């Protein structure tokens, strides 16, 4: 009984720790967007051509945060 309770507890703690990963990905995405803006303000004429790169960068930074979200979801509903 106590083991089951401990397993349930660990599940929720693990899912909560997975949330940290999502927050870290948020920092990463902000980093990409902020640096893009910093570059774009220095050279606005080149900015329009780089929006695709911006979104690819955001997508790759976001992917790892999504993995932690997935881990949290798996812990909550699948394990």
């Amino acid at each position: 009984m106590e083991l089951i309770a401990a397993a349930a507890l660990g599940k929720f703690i693990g899912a909560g720790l997975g949330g940290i990963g999502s927050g870290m990905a948020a920092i990463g995405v902000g980093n990409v967007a902020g640096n893009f803006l910093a570059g774009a303000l220095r050279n606005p004429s080149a900015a329009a051509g780089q929006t695709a790169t911006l979104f690819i960068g955001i997508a790759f930074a976001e992917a790892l945060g999504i993995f932690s979200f997935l881990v949290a979801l798996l812990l909550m509903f699948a394990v």
Partner: protein
Amino acid sequence: MTVATDQAAEASSKLSLHPMEQFTVRPLFGGTEIHWYTITNVTLWMAVAVVCTFLLLVYATRARALVPGRGQSIGEVVYGFVRNMVVDVAGEEALAFFPYILTLFMFVVFANSLSLIPMSFATTSHFAVTGVLAIAVFLTVTIVGFVKNGTSFLGLFWVTSAPLPLRPVLAIIELISYFVRPVSHSVRLAGNMMAGHAVMEVFAGFAIVLWISPLSIAAITAMYGLEIMVAVVQAYVFTILTCVYLKDALHPHH
């Protein structure tokens, strides 16, 4: 004391938060079992997305006027947008796959946007739906890579610009990241849609409490606006990543 806690428990049970309940797949025409041919809310809304794509493109290409009307200019904007994306990211050769990529983009955009209609169903929030799309892209890209480049496609994993001792390590990392692609590709879309809809449902749950309900309605409105943007941006990201993967398949040595 016990009465007070009971009342508190009752009040908290009235605040019913079931944010994930909206994603339940249900057969539409009675019955509880789901077979591959059962018409469920998922299949219905996917069919609606396909019909909308079809209708928009048919309406847009119906007149073929030199000076486009309203419908035709929407079609031209979408066509030009996706075509530019394919050419910019993957190059002119990738235009052979332009019909597939345009179809993907239109389907995802419509499935995302239709899920924002109240009482509709968010099909793209299911990993099964986005997983099939992502696996289709993954298989296409892998097969195209091997057909176009033969075994030199494996050069994608052998980074010649790196120092020699590092290359085996990099090869393993590249191999893992290659096979993780369909996972991240599908989970990104599904996760974003699911998270957005779950957040809206949570705020909707708070609306039951009287004094917090104006705030809750304002929050739902704001989230709805954000979700409209997310629906389009995620479709864009899904499509542009398809182009990036296609570029890797067509030119593995860059």
